[in-house]
């Protein structure tokens, strides 16, 4: 019987205590952050979307090799000796046209492994995390400074140059070879030509 009254008292009392607690919470400022209006400050070294400062890129392909998910695709073309691609801000000479530097950020796992190998420190992770798209293909970011037409132009130019060089080289090689042959035949030095003189001709001449 005492237990019965005690139970009633305890339950009524605990309801009242609970109501006081919840009523107090009614006036405690909410912890909610209204996201698009208010944003939390990210940690200093937060790793989010990749960014490439293409002006500093020398096209060494090291970031692409470091990437565990192969989200970086780089294509380079050698520059002509006559062309000057300038220097990076770290003082390295740029020798390659970077015709393609695509990062598929949809594949990126934000590990940051691409950042340390970069010799010119041009690839880095930024604090940008709002880049949602309706189409997955829009998440492939093109960082190459060259327009597709320009890249094509560079490619054909270099190819032509290389072809030209190869042709020249071949020609040179051929010339060298023929020269060698010519030399060997014209000078006809005895050690190089052990062939016996044709008996007929020689006899007639002598």
């Amino acid at each position, binding site marked *: 019987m005492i237990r*019965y009254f005690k139970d009633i008292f305890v339950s009524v009392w605990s309801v009242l205590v*609970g109501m006081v607690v*919840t*009523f107090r*919470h*009614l006036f405690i400022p*909410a*912890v*909610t952050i209204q996201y698009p209006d208010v944003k939390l400050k990210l940690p200093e070294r937060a790793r989010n979307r990749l960014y490439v400062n293409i002006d500093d890129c020398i096209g060494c392909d090291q970031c692409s090799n470091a990437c565990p998910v192969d989200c970086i695709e780089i294509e380079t073309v050698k520059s002509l000796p006559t062309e000057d691609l300038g220097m990076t801000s770290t003082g390295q000479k740029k020798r390659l046209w970077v015709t393609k530097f695509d990062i598929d950020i949809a594949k990126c796992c934000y590990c940051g492994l691409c950042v340390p190998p970069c010799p010119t420190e041009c690839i880095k992770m930024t604090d940008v995390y709002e880049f949602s798209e309706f189409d997955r293909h829009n998440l492939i970011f093109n960082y190459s400074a060259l327009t597709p037409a320009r890249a094509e132009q560079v490619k054909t130019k270099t190819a032509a140059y290389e072809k030209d060089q190869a042709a020249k080289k071949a020609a040179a090689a051929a010339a060298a070879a023929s020269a060698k042959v010519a030399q060997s035949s014209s000078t006809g030095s005895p050690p190089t030509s052990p062939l016996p003189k044709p008996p007929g001709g020689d006899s007639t001449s002598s």
Partner: protein
Amino acid sequence: MPIWWQLLEVLTSFSERLIDKVEQILRNILDNDIVVYTVMAFVPLLWVVPYALFAVWLERKVSAHMQDRLGPMRVGGWHGWAQTIADILKLIQKEDVVPAAADKKLHFLAPYVVFVGSYAAFAAIPFSSAYIGSNISLGLFYIIAVSSLVVVGILMAGWSSNNKWSLFGAMRSAAQIVSYEIPTALALLVVIMITGTLNLQEINQMQSGWFWNWFIFRKFPFVFIASIIYFVASLAETNRTPFDIPEAESELVAGYHTEYSGMKFALFFLAEYANMFAVSAIASTLFLGGWNSPFGDFLSGPLWGVFWFLSKGMFFVFVQMWLRWTLPRLRVDQLMYVSWKVLTPWSFACILGVGLWMMVAP
């Protein structure tokens, strides 16, 4: 005297018999009793629907702030005030899904029965000294009787859905409402013993004057305890937490309205909130003086009566929400324990106490 005060007085005197005038005008135009009564039946709906929209929003805000959240903040600008309007527009557009194995007729009928049950109670609720839907002498009895229709609708919904969770919810609801109607009625009986009438308008008039004339402060502490018993039992009757086992989300998906979607679900929702206000209205009428001003003649009158009545009702609605976000759900056996072993004996004790008091000092 400020101009708005005069304006208010003009408005008050005009509204004195406003409803009667409206009815008179309608009668002149339409000249058909049935049509006039049908139109007049929609008058409480002018309060119930905006109230339900507001209460759903309020519930979400109260729950959010009690948990240190913000709740809806976007729709409509200021603190998401238009959220429920957007929700109801969404519900209207939604597909009305009826399960293939459901009993189609009962499944269709159930939400209407539930809503009619809770809305019919508004017919006898006195909103003001000038307005009561139907000033019948058995008002309170009528409200208790007609609000039992809700359980029929709930049972209908749960059983016709042909879903075990719905059926569980419906059975629990039936068991709960049947057992909690007893303490509810007994607690109201405590007041009826003092008033000697079931007419809610007369009960209101008995409590006019200052707030110590309210029944909650009379025959202390018997009526006070009865008011608490009534409030607790009414929570169970409206399926509100901590007595929300009929729609216990974590156990029964959504209870009896699991298989409802679109407008029918909205009707269940509307009925629940209408029911909440109906029981709050009865509590405020019987215990807190209804449309009477707490300060005697100050701020009293038919229009102020509406204000006082609605604010007292909304106070109880707020307390219901407050309790919902304070208490966990009761177990089924605890529910039955509270009803049969606590509330019912204590309401009998209150009846006995008031009876003896009235016998000794009438």
